[in-house]
């Protein structure tokens, strides 16, 4: 699930991003916050939280709005969970034996099958933006955790696209909206909603709510900027 830039940067880019750009004037603060939420969602969809992350989540205080409420619920869920239980829940939800409950892949949600055309379209866009799968990762790139990492990278200016004048430039809001609409907007909200009703979901029910609320704001914000 780990995506990095072509070349040496086969790292978790969303993770680096939050720190790299903390002092950067290039990224406005609310945009950085978006990148951090994407980074957190990617982290929680990639692997279950360890004790340290659970403790940090338990201290979350929502700041109003649907997203704030969801954050408070996530904090409550984190306080009531321990890492071992959440890890077992993660396994049942996303890995499973003989089939997981949830398959957070764009292709699966959009076509009913893995590795269909949405994955091919994504790979084209990744090539255009210079994004490559990290070494040793075998999962398809259209896993939602990878897509969230890519969004965080786009927001943070890690990737560049070629403009009409032929120059390479960081991906602006319009480019982010294009990527979001093509690869995330049409299905990820549905996935997060499904996650909240998954029979085995406890902690991840709260994660689903945070994701759903966040994407709702993202979608509206993109419409404002357009």
């Amino acid at each position, binding site marked *: 699930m*780990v995506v990095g830039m072509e070349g040496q940067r086969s790292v978790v880019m969303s993770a680096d991003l939050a720190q790299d750009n903390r002092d950067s004037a290039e990224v406005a603060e609310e945009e950085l*916050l978006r990148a951090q*939420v994407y980074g957190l969602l990617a982290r929680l969809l990639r692997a279950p939280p360890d004790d340290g992350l659970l403790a940090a989540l338990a201290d979350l205080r929502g700041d109003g709005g649907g997203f704030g409420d969801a954050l408070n619920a996530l904090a409550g869920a984190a306080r009531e969970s321990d890492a071992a239980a959440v890890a077992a829940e993660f396994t049942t939800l996303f890995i499973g034996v003989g089939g997981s409950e949830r398959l957070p892949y764009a292709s699966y949600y959009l076509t009913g099958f893995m590795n269909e055309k949405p994955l091919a379209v994504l790979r084209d866009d990744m090539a255009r933006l210079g994004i490559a799968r990290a070494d040793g990762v075998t999962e398809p790139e259209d896993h939602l955790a990878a897509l969230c990492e890519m969004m965080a990278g786009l927001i943070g200016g890690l990737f560049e696209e070629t403009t009409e004048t032929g120059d390479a430039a960081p991906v602006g809001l319009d480019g982010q909206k294009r990527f979001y609409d093509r690869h995330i907007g049409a299905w990820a909200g549905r996935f997060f909603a499904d996650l909240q009703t998954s029979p085995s979901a406890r902690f991840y029910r709260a994660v689903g709510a945070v994701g759903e609320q966040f994407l709702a704001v993202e979608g509206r914000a993109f419409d404002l900027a357009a």
Partner: protein
Amino acid sequence: MDGMDGSGTMTERHRADKPNGAMARRDLFRVAGLGVGALGAAAVGAVGAAPTAEAAPTAPATTGYRETDHVRTVYALSRF
């Protein structure tokens, strides 16, 4: 970049007047509870706990599925 023109801070201006896209965006995030620092330490936690490609699936002391070197070898030999 953020639509401010230097003639006043954002809080002093009348946002409702004619919000441009960037300002409306910022307001939307703020009202939705996505204010700066909303994630607090959890953002840092996500960073600090971010595993490498190798480390991710091999968290110790779980009973869940782990793709250990042995499992990878089995997959390789069975040519999946």
